[in-house]
């Protein structure tokens, strides 16, 4: 006799390969291993400079393999794609079978099946078989969804079943996993993430995206009215960063709102997060003294810190102080204290740019026959900017639905089971002998315990 099965057609073999759980185990562990690499080798986009850490040879190899950007490497994406394919094929193959099982009619009382159950509990009840059946039905019907009783030649049989639908649970888990992958893909294809630094009083309707700082239009304009840093009472640790902003949507009246850490503003599919803050520049003015070296005459000129030039005395030209810094570092690393950047535009000749310490007349300089010194500043205050992170991710709700579904799927799959219970009631003497046996597709230990408890309940019924 030829016992050999004919080799499966190639397509079936390929499908079987992609439907196999062994492949999924392999893929899950491979993705895990690849992820380990990504955490051991500093990844691109992180602040550290990694290259000097490795020898040039290793460096070249790692670059070739994409180890400096594992999660975006083609082979990593391929692994995820294979995982998805694995899931889809496996589902397509098995779903029809499960579906039939779940939606099919309740199986009858197959004695053969009952006989094959290994662990059975036998109890004796001190009542006629018919009453025993009623007692069984009473105990069982509150615990099982489907209960059927039948009379047969030697007594009664009761069949109880529940949770058949829980066999669908793992499809929910797998579907959610696909949803999460799909949502992530959607986000990476159609989403963006950029930053928006706004000074107090400044408005913007665009945002800078990516390393090449492309500008993107926002569906609304944001104006930063005020930026505030709050501290814990009596401490110097920050409790809150808040941007007080005005939003102007086309065709609507402007409205005001706050953006705080952990409380982003979500609007028209775009989210604005409080990410950072800083000093963009200073406002106020500095007094600059001038002494005419020919005549000995003196003049003090208040110059605002701005891009507006101010006239110099004696018609010598213009002066402009575009920026102030709270601490200037000299070339050898000394802190020179507060300083300004200064532009001098003579009536004739080339303009000059210089840094001058503030409030240190001993650092006076000669310019165009004038002795110039920067005196104290007045009302010099920092002007803050708020650093907003702006993202658009159309996939996030797909991902979140996956999150909710995967948890529901886990609860159903892990903690609920398809339970089937057979109870055989046979008259014995003046009472009845009751035999209980059952099966659950999961946690058979737990189900055994349950059957034992039901038996205990019945014994108490007497």
């Amino acid at each position, binding site marked *: 006799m030829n016992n050999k099965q004919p080799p499966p057609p190639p397509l079936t073999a390929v499908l079987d390969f992609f439907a196999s759980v062994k492949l999924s185990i392999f893929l899950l562990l491979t993705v895990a291993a690849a992820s380990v690499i990504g955490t051991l080798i500093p990844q691109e986009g992180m602040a550290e400079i990694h290259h000097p850490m490795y020898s040039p040879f290793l460096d070249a190899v790692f670059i070739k393999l994409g180890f400096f950007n594992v999660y975006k490497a083609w082979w990593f994406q391929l692994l995820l794609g294979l995982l998805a394919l694995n899931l889809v094929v496996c589902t397509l193959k098995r779903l029809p079978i499960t579906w039939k099982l779940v939606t099919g009619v309740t199986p009858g009382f197959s004695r053969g099946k009952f006989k094959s159950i290994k662990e059975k509990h036998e109890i004796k009840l001190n009542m006629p078989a018919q009453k025993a059946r009623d007692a069984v039905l009473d105990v069982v019907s509150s615990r099982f969804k489907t209960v059927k009783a039948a009379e047969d030649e030697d007594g009664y049989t009761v069949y109880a079943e529940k949770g058949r639908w829980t066999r669908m649970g793992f499809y929910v888990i797998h579907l959610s996993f696909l949803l999460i992958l799909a949502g992530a893909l959607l986000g990476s294809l159609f989403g963006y993430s950029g930053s928006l630094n706004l000074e107090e009083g400044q408005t913007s309707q665009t945002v800078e995206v990516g390393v090449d700082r492309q500008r993107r239009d926002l569906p609304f304009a944001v104006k930063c009215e005020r930026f505030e840093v709050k501290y814990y009472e009596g*401490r110097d640790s920050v409790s*809150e960063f808040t941007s007080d902003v005005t939003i102007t949507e086309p065709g609507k009246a402007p409205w005001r709102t706050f953006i705080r850490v952990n409380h982003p503003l979500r609007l028209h599919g775009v989210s604005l997060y409080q990410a950072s803050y800083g000093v963009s520049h200073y406002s106020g003015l500095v007094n600059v003294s001038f002494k005419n070296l020919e005549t000995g005459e003196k003049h003090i000129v208040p110059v605002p810190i701005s891009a507006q030039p101010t006239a110099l005395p004696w018609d010598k030209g213009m002066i402009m102080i575009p920026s102030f810094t709270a601490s200037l570092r000299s070339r050898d690393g000394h802190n020179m204290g507060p300083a300004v950047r200064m532009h001098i535009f003579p009536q004739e000749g080339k303009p000059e740019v210089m840094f001058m310490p503030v409030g240190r007349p001993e650092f006076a300089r000669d310019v165009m026959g004038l002795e110039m010194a920067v005196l104290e500043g007045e009302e010099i205050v920092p002007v803050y900017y708020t650093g907003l992170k702006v993202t658009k991710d159309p996939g996030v709700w797909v991902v979140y639905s996956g999150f909710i579904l995967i948890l529901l799927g886990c609860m159903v799959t892990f903690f609920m089971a398809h339970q089937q219970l057979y109870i055989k009631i046979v008259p014995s003497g003046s009472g009845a002998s009751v035999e209980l046996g059952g099966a659950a597709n999961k946690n058979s230990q737990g189900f055994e315990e349950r059957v034992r408890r039901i038996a205990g309940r019945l014994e108490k019924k007497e």
Partner: protein
Amino acid sequence: MALLEILESTAIVSFITFVYGAAAVLYWADWVFEKPVLSRSATWLMLIGFLGNTAGIVLRWIESHQMGIGRAPFTNLYESLVFFAWTIAILYLVIEKQYKVRSLGAFAAPLAFLALAYAALQNKAIMPLMPALKSNWLIAHVITCFLGYAAFAVAFGLAVIYLIKSRDVGLSWLAGALAGIAAAILTVIFTGYQTDAFWTLAGAGFFIGAGVALGAGFATSAVVNLVKKSDPGGKGRVNKMLPDLGVLDELTYQTILFGFMFLTAGIITGSVWANSAWGRYWSWDPKETWSLITWLIYGAMIHSRLVRGWRGRRTVYLSLFGFGAVLFTYFGVNTLLKGLHSYAT
């Protein structure tokens, strides 16, 4: 309130450390002297420890409010370790009540003790939270993650019991080696061994790991060998005290499913939090990635049971391996790898 002024949460927790330690000693003593009264008293100690642990956590919450910076007590390494001990204690007590496996106490109690002992080395000050940490998602994140971690810790204990019960010397050798590697990694971390030189680190880790793995593998197999020799027929009390292999296998699996669900919930709440704080639900930060790695390992293990014949031994391997990943996610990442979660050090 007078009582509150005397009883500081940290003092209670230090005391509870010894209660858990004493429980561990009693559970072990029962294995050696085979006197059930020992493990019964140990269970009472565990219960006292658990109640004290709860009090410590609640009190710390109250203390933070008294300082005017009220915040949930789950936000730094010290607090998370105290909470970790709490979750191990409650999970163990529930399993003991449900399944009557006192022998598991010999693993659960020392784990709770070690968590608190390590907590004692951490900075215990109640600091105000930085703005990003002020989120209900963070609380949900910590609670779910630690319930998951604790379940994996208990599953690890069950796997070790499986090893002893199965009297499989070869398997215990391997398990010991795995545990040794985990221990070596932890030692490297605990001694604060930090350097930018990747290869120095990897090399030292390798040699220490190999050495400790060898030792641990040898020691574990020796213990199992001893149990086997002293009780050749498997009729001794220790052997009877341990549940059947089938029960252990099932129980380990159920515990892992429980852990898996909470780890899933932990990753999810963490990423929802990240999305509300930083505008990204996933950024491949090392801590995040390691929790995913752990999730993938346990996921693979859940599937391994679908392949025929992959029960028992393989469940044990993966349970040990997975717990190694849990430990690394929790301790290793903070110290060895840098990322967003560095607040937790």
